[in-house]
């Protein structure tokens, strides 16, 4: 009896602490409280009073929920609106990657009615699996969309549409209430919104197929699983790798024969995509393994990819982080060794121990955190009665608002990396220079020049036309000396232009171009020089 009373008192303290925590986070997001306070510590402290509640079994199951559809539609519309709003600030796409996508989509579209597999440069094969580009070809042929329309319409739509797979998968594994909370948390997640502003198109498709693969695996629909795993392989290889890693412990534990058939089916479906590119895929795979080994042996943080790190993640996901950990503890306590549990463990190991691509793996890690947070919220806040249930609902609503505020701020502040004037300068190159010309650009400008100039682009460490190493590039970018620049540029035969946009993070010493060997041919937000040769 006394034990029960103590347990109830601790549980009540948990509710109070959770309320205080979420109000603090809310005040921080509203910039009323200092962001310097270590709120994460509070998040971890919150786990302790949650333990008695985790140990007590609470009856769950609501089989169906009223109001599911309006809430789901609201989440979808919110996710779509913030994405479209962020995109509406400028006609220039957000992020760093659109130029790479546009270039590759144009390559595929120009090669129609065939697929230009044999003519692709090795860097294209290494970073771009065929799936997205065959889809863009199909849409080009059937719906008449060009690369920009395909990207501008489909990308925000698919990003918002992920609300539904989130709901479907979480509901299938943890019940309808957890499913609904997961869908809403996905819609307000800053991390997932950042995926949009960084223009990680393949990532979004990868997440979709990762979720469907988990769904098919748990529902034991192995035919469906073969298709979704194959789709993972042709759209986004990091998520394919993650799912393969999830499957290993899952298969050892559950030993279902159907999994083998699904894997074999997926292998057959992927074969024509991967076999012609075995050398590029092998390079990527060995590079990944080498990075992981080097990270373990030397503690070096190599090959993290471009995304924010785990320290930043803990700040932006602060509102639901403690509940995600509670959700993970809930799975542990119930010995629920499902695929989501292995997904949580494996993606956490990759990110926390910096194994490979550890910054980019924060994106799928956030998805599993959102799912587990939904489980935690459902279990610890919503499965209550009377007054404490009301408190639980209030905490959940505050949590959703607190998680959504940074997303709304980011949507307000989202700006492309180059201005409309700077993109017009690139388009000027397409219209006014020789078709066989080279355009030299910094790595900051390179994707835009590649995507929009329709010319061969020379940039540090990028593309097949570059013949210089890192040291030579560093020296060229910094020097103001004409002779050094000439020596560098004379390595390229044919008309040569230099493009440089005026952005703070974009560095190129322009002093070397102030002499008769160069002619300034365009200036408005960006400058374009024509190299007249050494003479």
């Amino acid at each position, binding site marked *: 009896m006394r034990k029960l009373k103590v347990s109830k008192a601790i549980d009540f303290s948990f509710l109070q602490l959770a309320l205080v925590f979420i109000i603090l986070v809310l005040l921080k997001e509203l910039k009323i409280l200092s962001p310097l306070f270590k709120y994460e510590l509070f998040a971890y402290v919150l786990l302790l009073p949650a333990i008695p509640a985790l140990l007590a079994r609470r009856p769950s199951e609501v089989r169906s929920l009223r109001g599911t559809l309006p809430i789901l539609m609201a989440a979808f519309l919110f996710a779509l609106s913030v994405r479209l709003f962020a995109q509406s600030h400028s006609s220039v796409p957000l992020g760093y990657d659109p130029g790479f996508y546009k270039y590759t989509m144009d390559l595929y579209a120009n090669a129609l009615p065939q697929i230009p597999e044999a003519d692709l440069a090795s860097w294209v094969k290494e970073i771009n699996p065929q*799936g997205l580009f065959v889809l863009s070809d199909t849409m080009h042929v059937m*719906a008449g969309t060009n690369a920009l329309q395909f990207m501008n319409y489909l990308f925000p739509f698919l990003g918002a549409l992920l609300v539904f797979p989130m709901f479907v998968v979480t509901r299938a594994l943890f019940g309808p209430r957890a499913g609904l909370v997961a869908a809403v948390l996905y819609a307000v997640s800053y991390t997932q919104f950042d995926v949009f502003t960084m223009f990680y198109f393949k990532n979004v498709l990868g997440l979709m197929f990762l979720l469907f693969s988990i769904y098919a695996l748990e529902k034991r629909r192995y035919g469906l699983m073969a298709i979704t795993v194959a789709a993972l392989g042709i759209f986004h290889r990091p998520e394919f790798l993650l799912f393969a890693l999830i499957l290993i412990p899952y298969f050892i534990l559950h030993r279902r024969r159907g999994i083998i058939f699904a894997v074999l089916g997926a292998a057959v479906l992927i074969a024509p995509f991967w076999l012609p590119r075995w050398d590029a895929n092998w390079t990527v795979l060995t590079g990944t393994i080498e990075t992981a080994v080097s990270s373990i042996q030397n503690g070096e943080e190599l090959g993290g990819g471009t995304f924010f790190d785990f320290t930043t993640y803990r700040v932006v996901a602060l509102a639901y982080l403690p509940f995600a950990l509670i959700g993970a503890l809930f799975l542990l306590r119930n010995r629920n060794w499902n695929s989501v549990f292995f997904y949580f463990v494996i993606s956490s190991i990759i990110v926390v121990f910096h194994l490979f691509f550890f910054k980019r793996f924060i994106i799928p890690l956030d998805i599993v955190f959102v799912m587990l947070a939904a489980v935690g919220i459902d279990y610890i806040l919503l499965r209550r009665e009377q007054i404490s249930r009301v408190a639980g609902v209030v905490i959940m609503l505050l949590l959703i608002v607190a998680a959504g505020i940074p997303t709304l701020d980011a949507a307000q502040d989202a700006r492309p990396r180059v201005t409309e004037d700077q993109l017009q300068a690139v388009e000027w190159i397409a219209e006014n220079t020789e078709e066989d010309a080279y355009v030299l650009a910094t790595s900051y400008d390179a994707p835009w020049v590649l995507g929009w100039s329709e010319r061969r682009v020379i940039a540090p460490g990028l593309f097949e036309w570059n013949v210089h190493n890192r040291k030579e590039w560093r020296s060229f970018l910094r020097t103001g000396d004409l002779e050094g620049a000439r020596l560098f540029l004379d390595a390229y035969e044919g008309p040569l232009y230099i493009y440089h946009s005026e952005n703070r993070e974009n560095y190129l010493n322009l002093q070397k171009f102030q002499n008769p060997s160069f002619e300034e041919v365009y200036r408005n937000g960006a400058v374009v020089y024509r190299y007249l040769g050494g003479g």
Partner: protein
Amino acid sequence: MSVLEGFRIFFGSVFVLFIPGFAWSYVFFAKKNIDWIERAALSVGLSIALVPLMVFWFNWLLDVKITLPNTSLMVCGLTGVALVWIWARKHSWTSRSVERAKLWFKSLRSR
């Protein structure tokens, strides 16, 4: 963008990104097994997975060019296969065939 272009984009997108997956969702889940939210989500996911797989396979294996008529036929064929499958299952043609095959194997063994 003209109205006609808008129509083409809308209906072309539905044709490529929804219809084949919608038909295939019935192959994996009968009508009563899942609700329409699940079916709608699966329809989009399956379409995006199946269409590039099929277009690439036909181009690689049979050198089928990616043109409007060919791709339309491929998407219709993909949807058609699913419909035939569903029809066959509904008329328990497949299960009867499986039963027959099992009996045949048994008879082979007993010999």
